[in-house]
């Protein structure tokens, strides 16, 4: 009898050791890989004191860069949300030929290098491109101007809303919507009052991811914008240039600002989601 109990205890101790080992390895990995660099930038950005931070924000090119980034983000979020919901509904609910292909296409922007996206845009809208005559005739400047920057950012940010919403839709099923129809609700009414509230959190999280991605985009925007200082320079492009011109301090500060914004946004949504599920539970 005693041998059985000691072996059980030994087993448990072994299990506990394993767990401790796994935990410490994992924590160490995360600390070195993720937290240390974060700590590093916080330290170096604020090293020169808040006065330097204020000075950076007063610079006109910094402000313009933030302004541009904000515009791109807003437009991107609006378009990807609208388009994303529609595509998500179709993907989650309908059966059609080529569905797998569409699903793969939706994931494509995630796998393709943003640099390639930028190149494609240049080839399409730049001199000699397929779409160039159309826009040139209307006097709209696409490449090396805001429109193309917005376009590539939209392309790159599309998957986020869709990928967050589709699984939620799949899990919900269609019964509530069908019930709403039998009660006389039109498709639009049903969407507004039944579908939307049900996908609320997934949607918001997807929007936050989309927004975070759009403010962080650098590769595609670099190619497409021509990087004209003060005109087509986003916050990320500013950071690139600032580093090149040995204005590292400013670069750190702007970088930290961008990161903080996204982090706060995502944490905010996470907390709201957790609180919401606690209420409903």
């Amino acid at each position, binding site marked *: 009898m005693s041998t059985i109990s000691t072996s059980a205890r030994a087993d448990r101790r072994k299990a506990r050791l394993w767990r401790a080992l796994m935990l410490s390895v994992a924590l160490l990995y995360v600390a070195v890989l993720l937290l240390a660099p974060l700590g590093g930038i916080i330290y170096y950005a604020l090293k020169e004191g808040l006065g330097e931070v204020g000075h950076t924000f007063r610079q006109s090119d910094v402000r313009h860069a933030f302004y541009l980034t904000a515009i791109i983000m807003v437009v991107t979020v609006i378009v990807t949300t609208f388009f994303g919901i529609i595509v998500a509904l179709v993907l989650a609910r309908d059966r059609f030929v080529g569905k797998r292909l569409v699903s793969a296409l939706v994931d494509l922007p995630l796998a393709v290098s943003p640099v390639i996206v930028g190149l494609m845009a240049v080839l399409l809208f730049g001199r000699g491109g397929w779409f160039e005559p159309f826009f040139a005739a209307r006097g709209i400047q696409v490449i090396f101007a805001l429109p193309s920057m917005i376009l590539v950012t939209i392309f790159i940010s599309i998957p986020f809303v869709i990928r967050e919403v589709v699984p939620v839709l799949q899990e919900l099923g269609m019964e*509530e919507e069908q*019930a709403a129809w039998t*009660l*006389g609700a039109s498709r639009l*009414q049903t969407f507004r009052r039944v579908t939307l509230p*049900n996908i609320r959190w997934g949607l918001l999280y997807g929007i936050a991811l989309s927004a975070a991605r759009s403010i962080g985009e650098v590769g595609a925007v670099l190619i497409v914008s021509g990087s004209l200082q003060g005109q087509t320079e986003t916050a990320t492009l500013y950071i690139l240039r600032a580093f090149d011109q040995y204005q590292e301090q400013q670069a750190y500060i702007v970088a930290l600002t961008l990161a903080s914004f996204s982090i706060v946004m995502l944490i905010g949504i996470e907390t709201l989601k957790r609180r919401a599920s606690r209420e409903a539970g």
Partner: protein
Amino acid sequence: MAGSIQVRGLTKSFGSFRAVDDVTFEAAEGTITALLGPSGSGKSTVLRMIAGLEQPDAGSVWVAGEELTEASVQDRRLGFVFQHYALFRHMTVRKNVAFGLSVRRVDKGTQRERVDELLELVGLAPFGDRYPDQLSGGQRQRVALARALAPRPQVLLLDEPFGALDARVRQELRAWLDHLHRELGVTSLFVTHDQEEALELANEIVVMNHGRVEQVGPADAIYNQPATPFVAAFVGASNVLRGTVWERHVHFGHSIVAGAHEIPDGAEAIAYIRPHDIEITGEAGSTSFPVAVERRTDMGWMSKLHLRLEDGQPLVAQLPNEEIVGVEAGQRLFANLRNPKVFAADRADDESATVPGAIVAPAETETQTEAQV
């Protein structure tokens, strides 16, 4: 407010699978009708086509004399209750019940009154501000019913409404639905695989199998005069005996049973006998035949007798104890069969004539996880 439901020649296939095949029946105004059948019989699909949630390949749907086949779900003004309730999880009970009214822009005051009225009717008045996940299964289904009835639909459709509930709650709600129907008089059509439920609740039963209608009629007709072997086997417990027909009797071994009217001599036939339609006597008579008593199981006021015929086919009788005093295992007695339903063997498919002699039990063994068609 109630209307009749008419369905003519409804047909629907999913790919190469024919789920519903030329189904026609009528549910009269104010009645409660059951669509009864096993999983895969197409009954849910028929219901959903009436509601507009599926489109038929052929056939038409008529409610209160008006053809609805092309109408959208929203325009049909039918109440629908789902097996898994489909309550709007982000709305309170009150908001759920009020939904059909608020969608039609009924004013808030009237909405509130109607919701109160219905919550009272389903016995959930104090639960108005709860959310669906705070309610039990039975309560949720009652909310679903209140919600479906709020906009005063002409007809009420229920898709296995009690399928997701456990046995006791199912009984309660069954009695309660009966009561509700008597009070409101809304024409109701419900789908079920539970024949007990159908027999208890419905004025008319439509028995379906493999997408086709087997029989339509009131409960006692279905039970006592089954039109097809499937109905005989599916509804109510039955003994299944196989034999050959000779001069309008079915012969199995030395035993015979009357009733093989239209079956030609020499053909194989199957007789379905209810366990209580068996009489045990001590002496041979003109119609009785010898049986051996293999086992007796006492079940309170009645007993189950496991008998065996001379040709080896088993027979199970369920009789009140007073009719079988002194009957014990090991005895050789005689059995008389009352009211056998006889069909030509080729009419019965495998399921209706499974293990010869086995009691084909009613389909209460179907679990609620089986897919509905």
